[in-house]
């Protein structure tokens, strides 16, 4: 294949030098650190991130509007928000393994939030949405040139909220409230409890809960982001970082110069790019097959292929 990792200018293993960020972050705190730095430097004046429902309830003016009952506490359910301070970014750090429609705020960020330079974090498909929106802004007037930093996070698959409830409460036998962190790594779905419990589920179990839309997804490492990052390839607590675009290169360079990150050459760390490539290939191959099967799904009837 060869194209599975997308175009990139450089790739390193990195983590934030800010202990506070590392305490809250999922992996090396790349996303939160990079946005925090960009905010300080005026590269962005706010960012769209996935906060918790609790945060959205406390700060409705920062959150995407939906019709859910905000009084009803739903742990681990992400709500897209626009944040303009480091404290709020920290509050939104960490991975929520269910859908956060971050792109839904991309236009509002430039409207009632008054941002000129928007940061956005998202999965590879959300990065595709952002770039399609820049080239084909059908309903996104004056948004494209306001996108100042798009950070992508690697993604094998995502889940509906209900799937996560069932995985955590049924399979892992834990209350959603008592979960400290969730993680997919080393071929397992990990659930860490606040009291120190650790449950691991084989991915075989999680498959049936995946969001179907993910099965036609052909991007694992957010090829279209300015900077993309994920845990795969790097040691625990570290992240693999691809610097992809001119914007990404410039921001990353400045952040490095400012001492935001400590890095190791990706060639030196284990398991390294080899694993990233392997997983990317697996994902793309599997999903290409799904696309092929969709073409002959019915009797003389195909399911739609979105790619042209």
């Amino acid at each position, binding site marked *: 294949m060869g194209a599975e990792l997308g175009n990139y200018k450089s790739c390193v293993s990195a983590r934030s030098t800010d202990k506070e960020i590392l305490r809250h972050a999922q992996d090396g705190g790349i996303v939160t650190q990079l946005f925090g730095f960009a905010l300080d430097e005026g590269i962005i004046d706010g960012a769209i991130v996935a906060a918790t429902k609790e945060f959205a309830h406390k700060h409705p003016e920062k959150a995407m509007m939906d019709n859910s009952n905000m009084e009803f506490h739903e742990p681990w359910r992400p709500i897209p928000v626009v944040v303009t301070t480091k404290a709020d970014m920290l509050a939104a750090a960490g991975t929520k393994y269910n859908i956060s429609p971050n792109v839904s705020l991309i236009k509002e960020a430039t409207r*009632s939030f008054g941002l000129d330079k928007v940061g956005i974090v998202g999965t590879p498909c959300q990065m595709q949405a952002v770039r399609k929106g820049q080239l084909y802004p059908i309903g996104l*007037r004056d948004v494209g040139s306001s996108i100042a930093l798009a950070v992508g996070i690697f993604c094998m698959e995502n889940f509906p909220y209900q799937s996560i409830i069932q995985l955590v409460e049924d399979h892992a036998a834990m209350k959603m409230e008592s979960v400290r962190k969730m993680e997919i790594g080393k071929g397992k779905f990990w659930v860490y409890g606040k009291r120190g419990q650790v449950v691991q589920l084989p991915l075989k179990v999680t498959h049936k809960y995946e969001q179907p839309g993910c099965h036609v997804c052909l991007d694992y490492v957010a090829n279209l982001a300015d900077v993309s990052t994920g845990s795969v390839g790097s040691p625990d607590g570290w992240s693999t970082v691809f610097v992809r675009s001119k914007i990404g290169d410039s921001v990353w360079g400045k952040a490095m110069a400012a001492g935001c990150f400590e890095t190791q050459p990706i060639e030196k760390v284990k398991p390294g790019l080899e694993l990233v490539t392997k997983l990317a290939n697996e994902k793309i191959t599997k999903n290409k097959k799904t696309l092929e099967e969709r073409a002959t799904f019915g009797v003389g009837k195909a399911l739609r292929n979105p790619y042209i």
Partner: protein
Amino acid sequence: MSKVVEISPTTRHEGHSKLVLKVNDAGIIETGNWCSITPVRGVEKLAVGKTPEQVPKIASRVCGICPIAHTIAATEAMEASIKCEIPKDALMLRHILQLANRLHSIALHDILILPDFYIPGTETKINPFTAEEPVRSVAKRIQRLREIGQTIGQISGGECIHPSNTRVGGMYRNCSEQAKTKMYDLAKEGLVLAHQQAEFMIAVIRNYHKRDFVDVGGMKVALPKNLGFHDQGYLATHAFYGSSSLEECPSWDPNRFKEVRPWDWYMGEMTVDLEEPKYPIGGTTKIGTKVNPQMEACTGIPMYDGQPVEVGPRARLVTYKYFDEKGTQGQNVAREMEYQDCLYEMIDCIDLLNPNGKVVADYIPDGDGSLGWATNEAPRGTDAHIARVKDWKVQYFSMLVPTTWNFATCSKALEGAPWQLAEVIMRGYDPCVSCATHMIVMDEDNKLVAQKLIQ
């Protein structure tokens, strides 16, 4: 012997319209009919049975030049019918949005009328798109003013062409502190440019009207000093915003309003017997063509106290600021004079906006079928919407839009002018024709609205 000449379609304004003119031997207009020929999309009719939330969104789309006025007037007519008071900060956002739209619209009108005028001190007419100076700097300033207006509109209203942030009961979202600062900075920048632009335009307009002769397609046409004068009255409901039936002392009275169909007002069938191939661009309609304004016109004739009235910038300045300059010159000057006011007022409103205030009413009634109305001063005049909402369904909806008011008034103002200048007079009204085809009289009979309102 009078002759009939037709200019169709007219250009450099919004929508489709035409001028049918009966002129004397000297080419002076005896009777002028300016009529819309834009198909009637029937928004008042299609509104019946829809939700009060959707109808303003549709109403917005009758006109992309003053969509803000339509959105706000329609939304506030719904609110007037269901008797819903909106929070103060929601109203501030609507004020800002409305003024932002006016700013962009005045600037757009500058582009549309400039080709009629001369660069002062020369015989060169202005092509706003030429890359040559001094025109290019003016064009850039106009576009920057429009950008400022549209951007402020976008922040307060969600979108600047068809605003998305307005809703029955207030606004979807308030602006952040950051957004407020951004609007403030833009308005400040706009103020400087607006001063310059108004000064430039007024000089150009006055220079034109000082001339004895002007050139129209190579024809030397005598310019009358009373170009565009008429003796009709004026109507304005607020210096910049509007009024509604929820107010204690509303400034518009539906009892004084009446509308008739063009049948009573326009000329019947005639044949074109004067043709001028030199008239820019492409000449006038061919001799022998049958015209029939009575049948072709797509609008009605609205009247206030039994007569057509003028609405728009001059009407506002006459009503609220003792402005007294008449005719096409007065009208164009009045519009330029609204530039600064638009920004001063906007800055006041931005100051008053509390980013932490709530913007949606706590309680939004479903409506009991009462009649409510709201007016909004669109850039080109009073836009009055009337609605009846019952159980969250629209039962009745009517839009009395600015250009419709002006159609009959402008037709009067054409009298006595050389026919070659008819379009110049018409453009003074800054017509916006597609919306004008949506206005309709109260269905059953004219008294319906008034009677129900009094009850």
